[in-house]
């Protein structure tokens, strides 16, 4: 599904991501963990095209993404959420989802004028479904800026889903959530997988990562120091060292 080949992104002398090789298979929930500043968010930003890579290749479904600008990568099937929530605060919840319906399928299905002026029945039904999925149906006319923190996180996930992605990049979706909310998020992530969405989950909250992922890669200083199943990772000495800073035994 997604392959990173020797991917690097440097900022001046800082090697935020340094020679990263990664393969996410279709249908997987793949965890990407690591201490703060280890290059997880930078990886997401490079995959979505917000920064060009310094070197290396990104291959998505057999196609090199280098030439595609961010908005076309979304059309190709890659959507994301942000670590620090970035909703359109002065648009309503409903409008936040409306503007995000930019999948290739939506573009093909509706004519140019109809798409830009919007409002067809199919569009409304899809938004209603997303609102239902996120438990935000009763808030659809509220301004996104007025939502509570947990609701904003849910809306961001729904907004990413509005583009019908094949690959979803979640950048610390559980940050700031209590354990009940994390439980709900976990349910949602598993439901998305049932629908056939491949997920790359960047996360600190081990409770979530260890519970839902099929495979995990660990980054430290921009390099992959370990990869394996959650059980393997938990037992891995280099991982314990990077996280706990020292010999755990």
């Amino acid at each position, binding site marked *: 599904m997604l392959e990173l080949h020797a991917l690097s992104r440097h900022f001046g002398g800082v090697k935020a991501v340094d020679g990263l090789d990664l393969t996410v298979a279709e249908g997987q929930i793949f965890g990407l963990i690591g201490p703060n500043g280890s290059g997880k968010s930078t990886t997401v930003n490079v995959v*979505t095209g*917000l920064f060009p890579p310094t070197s290396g290749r990104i291959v998505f479904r057999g196609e090199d993404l280098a030439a595609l*600008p*961010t*908005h076309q990568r*979304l*059309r190709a099937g890659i*959507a*994301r959420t*942000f670590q620090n929530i*970035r*909703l*359109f*605060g*002065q*648009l309503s919840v409903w*409008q*936040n989802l*409306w*503007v*995000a319906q*930019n*999948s290739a399928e939506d573009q093909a299905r509706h004519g140019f004028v109809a*798409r*830009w*002026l*919007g*409002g067809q029945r199919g569009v409304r039904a899809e938004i209603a479904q997303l609102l239902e999925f996120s438990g935000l149906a009763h808030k659809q006319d509220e*301004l996104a*800026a*007025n939502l509570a923190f947990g609701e904003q996180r849910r809306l961001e996930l729904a*907004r*990413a889903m*509005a*583009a019908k992605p094949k690959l979803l990049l979640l950048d610390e979706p559980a940050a700031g959530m209590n354990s009940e909310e994390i439980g709900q998020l976990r349910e949602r992530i598993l439901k998305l997988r049932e629908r056939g969405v491949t997920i790359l989950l960047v996360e600190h909250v081990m409770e979530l990562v260890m519970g839902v992922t099929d495979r995990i890669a660990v980054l430290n200083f921009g390099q992959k120091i370990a990869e394996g199943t959650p059980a393997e990772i938990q037992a891995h000495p280099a991982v314990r060292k990077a996280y706990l800073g020292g010999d755990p035994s």
Partner: protein
Amino acid sequence: MDFYFGLAQIVGVHTLLGLSAYIVLLTGQVSLAQAGFFAVGAYTAGMLTVLAGWHLVPALGASALSGAAIACAVGFPALRVKGLMLVIATLAFGEGVRLFFFNFDYQIARGDIKVGPLGGEGFRQIRFFPENGWTTGEVMLFIWLFVVAAMALLWWFDRSRYGSVLRAVGEDELAAQSVGINLTAVKVSAMTIGGAIAGVGGGLYAHYTTHIEHTSFNILVATFAVAYPIVGGLRNVFGTLLAVIFVQAFLIEGLRFLGDWRNLLFGALIVLAMNLRPSGFLGARRRA
């Protein structure tokens, strides 16, 4: 009565100018190029009615097209820069247009006199309205037909998906592109529509004043254009209209009896208005 009709003409044309900046401002871009598009529209319509003998309506269509075309051409390079850099880039464009018309001569003989633009002397005798016997009231109604049409168009855009997309781009470009919005297409289209509206406004302006020159399109006009939607607020198109009435009818005409004190009060009252309503008369809905 003619005084009020004349005032309504000014308010109408300035509303078009303000609306042209409004749609660009929705995408978060502060453009000082609107006076340039206004100038292009004014000279285009004036030359077509005076030199080519066109009726005003098709001439205004040509103004809209020329304003849109030049705005689209400016949009591509200008919108690569943001914030203050964009202000400077669009300001430079506006001044470039003004200096072009300062040096632009194209006169032909019409009987004993020569008509057409004559550089720094300006373009006199744009007499479509008096030649066809239109009264001030009729001219005023004609102008407002376009104002209402432009307001209705932008009102409708605001309600459509396109309007939400414009505001999404204005709010967070990074998030907008991450949900698949093509920033260039959105910004350039807003600029182009703004250019068309400014072009029509310019064409109408040229005909009700009958005389245009380069100073009619200076930095002050560019500043007014972008100040209207800012003072009026971006909730909807009526904010811009309110701001034009506030500035043109109240501050400029209404306070004329104050003599020289008016100029002092003019600035003070705008500062006061912005302090009382920081997000404009009809500001965006408040955050909690």
